[in-house]
């Protein structure tokens, strides 16, 4: 049972390590899909929106991680 639970956890972690990143990527994909479904004329620029949107979400996530790392260092320096 423990092994089965571990396998399920590992499966989930295959795709989701940072829940916020995964959620935003899916949300953005859904928004692009929704727009293209209602406005088929946008299908041409939908690809550009999808690529650059995903890139922006990734960079924002990395920036946020870096800032958190800096805060952690500054907090530990302040304690010492």
């Amino acid at each position: 049972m423990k092994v089965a639970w571990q396998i399920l956890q590992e499966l989930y972690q295959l795709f989701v390590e940072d829940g916020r990143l995964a959620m935003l990527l899916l949300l953005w994909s859904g928004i692009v899909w929704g727009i293209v479904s209602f406005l088929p004329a946008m299908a041409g620029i939908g690809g550009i929106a999808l690529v650059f949107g995903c890139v922006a979400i990734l960079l924002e996530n990395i920036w946020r991680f870096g800032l958190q790392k800096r805060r952690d260092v500054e907090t530990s320096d302040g304690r010492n």
Partner: protein
Amino acid sequence: MIDWTHSVAAVSAAFLGSLVEFVEVLTIILAVGITRGWRAAWLGAIAGVVVLSVIVAAFGPALLAVPIANLQVFVGALLLLFGMRWLRKAILRSAGLIALHDEEAIYADETRVLSSARIATRIGVDPLGFATAFKATLLEGIEVAFIVLAIGVAGGQLVPAGIGALAALALVTIVGIFAHRPLARVPENTLKFAVGLLIAAFGIFWLGEGMGLSWPGEDLVLLPILGVLFGAALVGIRLARSAATPKGVEGTG
């Protein structure tokens, strides 16, 4: 030309992605074999492969029954999440914000834990060694199966993707047999970087195809998508470093 772009990308993604996973399995199996005996290591690995085959046989054909557009959206979304997770980790490792993957350290840790455990042998097999080898083979094997099935099924590239994974298995097995030690020289972060790029590009492409987006240049658009992701990854490394640098330290390193 169009088929080549896709097949080469599929073989590369499957080969590199599987290589990373097989190197990780080899490290664990070597640690189990040396500390708990080769019988437990091999039986555990074989049991892992058998269970994995049953899972693939059960879920693989089910994927083929899904209409292609829905399948492309589903698989594309999973590939996007999987690829972006690897790419994010590779960027953060390259920026020095998280530790690099170290096969020798993992091997040393596994060896220490496995050597210190005192568990009696059952029916001629060490249960701890068996369970460790079984779990490693099954879990890493699931990642390989996902990469091969996702890339293969959504784009009709199951054979190239399978060839890529088998080539990686053959390479790691041969090198493992001769070296008999963890493959610490494999540039795991560089590989994860490349695989993250390839798989995220496939994910975006299939997701777009499934959504009905019209990609300029059809399959060839994979190359500019890869280029954009690569450029973004380079920017990401600088961005991560600059965000993590405490105020007043900028420009000193």
